[in-house]
């Protein structure tokens, strides 16, 4: 027995130590990260973010230096809080609060006390800083906007949030990251590569050499400059035209799919989201739930396309061979298709053929055409699916794959959807149940971006490139390959000519006859989209949206445009006017029709937008019905 005491004590001590070592080294991993913090000093070199230019080489976004006042709480020596807070232009309470926050974060790691001070603020503070031990100033680079427009597609940069830090090793707390627009889309190109150097520290925080011989270090790489397809002049002009209106303008170059202008209204100055006031301004923009400036109506707004859709209805019918350009349809103020109320139409010459049908935007003609298309097949399900596949070839009903991070797919209803709606096969549904689709008013929804894309495809006579905003990446001298692949529609080229003629006649003697551009053959289509909102749970119809799509010149088109003005009433009223002068501006460089320009610049829809919020009953569409007399009066104004 006596022999066993030391033996057993030694063995049990050995086992205890093995257990303790296992716990410390294998089971409990907290030491690993903790040690990274106190023994390795990591120095980051943040490269200059790439600059952004427009298609003509105009500088849109560059960089400016900004300064953060940082603190390492443990290194603070007693100081005069009052005088420092005066220097920083904050209250002593705020300074104390920030210091406490920094200490809670970490006593040994730097935390910002005041972020993104300007050069001027820094110049004042810089020479005083030596009095305050533990504080230091860290320089960083912020965006410097050369323009006060285009915030919707430029996006902004902000401090990276924890969710991203957890997901992506590249980002560390305090780093900046692009959000929204091209800043987000081309983040990796614009940001470059952050340089990382690791140093081994000793316990006095002195650097004693590179860590692991610098094997983990990364050399910094400058961010690359990018050139956008945007025409800054046109963009600026578009934004001016959209002041006091809501909606959007999107223009693309049909031959390339390059986005020339992407106007979302209301918009805001991109410089609002830079610097010390950034979060205050962002909150203000975000809290504006009425005009929603952060909601990009061009990319995120899904609207019924209205009459411009009739061009597609025509093309599909021609491709399916169910109509001939010579077929006549009599319109008697509407299309009657059963016991219900007819699909109404406005007053115009009758009968119409394809070209005049488009020019006059005759609802009856397209209802009939649409019906023939769907009824070509044995079941409406089959017909709808065929119709849908044609539309999808125009990039509709799906995210289009353009290079901006926001968007909506729009909607092209499927047979399945109607089956569900009408509870098929318990109940059957027929083509007439979907007849509103014929005129872009039923279930069909599109973003203005999708509308301009199909317009461009028509302008090209059957193909398009995916719309994109990237023109060039400095150094790479190429753009992503998906924007260099021609997308073919399912419509044969010869079917486009009569439709394009119809769109041209819209200007010649149709719904936009007052909006012709001198010297330019232009094609377009008005749209007047009914819409409604819910006020206090009750559905209320609002003034129609004014929609317009156009391209010009008719042959060898240079620009395709879609204009969408919320509650702008009929298509040619706002949409048509804006499209017409935008095209002129782009093709001629200036607008000759000053009266037209003036009309758009001086007309506001703010009153219209206030109506549903007033709580009072209100008339829509100015309480008027569009008549020839009314239109003539309206045009007298010019």
């Amino acid at each position, binding site marked *: 027995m*006596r022999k066993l005491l*030391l033996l057993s004590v030694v063995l049990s001590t050995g086992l205890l*130590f093995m257990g303790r*070592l*296992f716990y410390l080294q294998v089971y409990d991993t907290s030491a690993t990260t903790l040690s990274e913090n106190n023994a390795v000093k990591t120095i980051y070199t943040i490269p200059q973010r790439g600059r952004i230019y427009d298609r003509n080489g105009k500088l849109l976004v560059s960089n400016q230096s900004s300064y953060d006042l940082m603190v390492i709480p443990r290194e603070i020596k007693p100081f005069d809080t009052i005088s420092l807070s005066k220097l920083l232009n904050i209250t002593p309470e705020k300074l104390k609060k920030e210091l406490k926050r920094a200490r809670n974060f970490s006593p040994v790691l730097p935390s910002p006390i005041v972020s993104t001070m300007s050069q001027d603020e820094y110049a004042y503070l810089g020479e005083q800083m030596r009095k305050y031990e533990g504080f230091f100033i860290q320089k960083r680079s912020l965006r410097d906007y050369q323009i006060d427009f285009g915030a919707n597609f430029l996006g902004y940069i902000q401090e990276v949030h924890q969710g991203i830090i957890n997901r992506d090793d590249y980002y560390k707390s305090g780093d900046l990251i692009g959000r929204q627009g091209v800043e987000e889309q081309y983040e990796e190109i614009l940001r470059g590569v952050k340089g990382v150097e690791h140093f081994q520290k000793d316990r006095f925080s002195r650097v004693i050499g590179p860590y692991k011989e610098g094997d983990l270090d990364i050399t910094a790489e400058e961010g690359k400059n990018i050139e956008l397809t945007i025409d800054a002049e046109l963009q600026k002009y578009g934004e001016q035209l959209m002041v006091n209106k809501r909606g959007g303008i999107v223009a693309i170059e049909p031959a390339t799919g390059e986005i020339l202008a992407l106007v979302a209204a209301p918009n805001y100055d991109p410089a609002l989201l830079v610097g010390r006031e950034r979060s205050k301004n962002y909150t203000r923009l975000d809290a504006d739930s009425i005009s929603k400036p952060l909601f990009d109506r061009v990319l995120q707004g899904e609207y019924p396309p209205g009459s411009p859709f009739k061009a597609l209805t025509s093309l599909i019918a021609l491709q399916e061979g169910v109509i001939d350009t010579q077929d006549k349809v009599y319109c008697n103020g509407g299309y009657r298709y059963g016991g219900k109320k007819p699909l109404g139409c406005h007053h115009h010459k009758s009968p119409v053929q394809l070209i005049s049908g488009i020019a006059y935007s005759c609802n009856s003609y397209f209802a009939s055409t649409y019906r023939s298309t769907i009824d070509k097949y044995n079941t409406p399900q089959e017909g709808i699916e065929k119709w849908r596949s044609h539309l999808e070839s125009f990039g509709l009903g799906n995210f289009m794959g353009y290079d901006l991070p926001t968007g909506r797919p729009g909607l092209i209803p499927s047979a399945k959807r109607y089956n569900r709606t009408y509870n098929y096969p318990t109940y059957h549904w027929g083509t007439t149940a979907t007849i509103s689709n014929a005129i872009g008013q039923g279930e069909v929804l599109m973003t203005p971006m999708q509308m301009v894309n199909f317009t461009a495809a028509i302008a090209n006579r059957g193909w398009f490139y995916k719309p994109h905003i990237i023109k060039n990446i400095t150094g790479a001298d190429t753009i992503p390959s998906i924007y260099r692949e021609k997308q073919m529609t399912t419509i044969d080229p010869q079917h486009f000519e009569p439709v394009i003629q119809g769109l041209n006649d819209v200007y010649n003697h149709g719904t936009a006859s007052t909006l012709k551009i001198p010297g330019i053959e232009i094609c377009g289509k008005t749209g007047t989209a009914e819409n409604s909102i819910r006020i206090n749970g009750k559905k209320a119809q609002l003034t129609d949206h004014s929609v317009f799509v156009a391209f010009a010149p008719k042959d060898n088109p240079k620009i395709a445009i879609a204009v969408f003005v919320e509650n702008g009433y009929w298509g040619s009223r706002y949409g048509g006017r804006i499209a017409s002068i935008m095209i002129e501006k782009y093709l001629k460089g200036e607008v000759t029709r000053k009266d037209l320009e003036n009309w758009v610049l001086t007309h506001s829809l703010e009153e219209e937008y206030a109506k549903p919020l007033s709580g009072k009953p209100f008339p829509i569409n100015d309480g008027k019905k569009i008549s020839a007399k009314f239109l003539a009066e309206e045009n007298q104004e010019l």
Partner: protein
Amino acid sequence: MSTGRSVGSFDWALILLYLALISIGWLSIYSASYDATAETFFSLDNLHTKQLLWIGLGFVIIVFILFLDSKFFERFSSLIYVVSILSLILLFPLGKNINGATSWFALGSFTLQPSEFAKVATALALAKYLSDIQTNIKTLRDQLRAFLVIAIPALVIIPQPDPGSALVYAAFFFPLYREGIAAGYLILGASVVTLFVLTLLFSPLYIALGVATIAILLFLRNRKKRPAKFLYIGIVLACSLFTFSVNYIFENVFQQRHRDRFNIVLGKEADTQSIGYNTRQSEIAIGNGGWTGQGFLQGTQTTGKFVPEQDTDYIFSAVGEEWGFLGSGLVVVLFVLLILRIIQLSEKQKNEFSRIYGYSVAGIIFIHFAVNVGMVTGLMPTIGIPLPFFSYGGSGFWGFTILLFIFIKLDGNRVNEW
């Protein structure tokens, strides 16, 4: 039976374990003192170069010991003991104060710590005394004399002040117990330690009430056997007295730094900055090792010198960080094997002196190992004693080498004892 002397009769297992430990130990000192900016390897400014010198001189001492007559140690043990005690006493007028303790003789730039050698002397003296035919450890008189042999060096070391080194003398309990001292001492010792720790954790009043409750329950259970009432009452009173006095001593006699050390280990205080800093840094370094370690000279905590005293008392943390669980586990296994081998060989000794000495060696190495690794891994309060064969220092290294090799010499002579 062979009477010839041959090198082959030394226990090679022990020698190999020894060589393995000093090799790993030296590499760890190299890591802990590594300075990329140092000029040359051979400069005596480097701790690792100096340690290499001590190891070389240690080998000379080994050869010397192995060539001495094995009877020399038994014969001269008393003299060695007396010289050793005198050297400890001479520290008071002549010693050099390093880090607050007057434990060193300074010979030019070199220093010698006699307390490292006093362990060997005490082990020899105890073995000599207990193996004497006239000594009967069962008698109280001889027990007291044996305690005196152990206590004299310890009592001289405590006021240097170096209570850590004095604690090592508790190791001699193991040979005493092996030689037949009453098991009551073991129970007493274990109770004292348990009560001591419990007192620090809880209020002495609760401890006293707890002991009383247990005593009453035991008494009631054994009532039919007519237990001795006064024995029970005596034990309860003794325990109560002890717990209250421990509390008094802890609060009034101990210095704050001692209290802090205990409180941190007992988890009553969390302090990672001042007193707990060493232990915390040491735990971080060990934890940083993971399964296989950061690699030689790659430990961030070790090369960054975050662990104070890492080349001496905290040397094990360098092993932990750079060689990981596998490496530090191996070192634990090597120590356990070394100690077990010494115990096993001690049991084989026909000569009582050799056996007692062997047990003393095993006990001393064990106490150092247990207290040091316990401290470095945060299981024990901070008690500054070196890890044998690892910690930097000539005196310590030679002390342990002499301690071990006298035993190897004695064991080597076992075959031609009679």
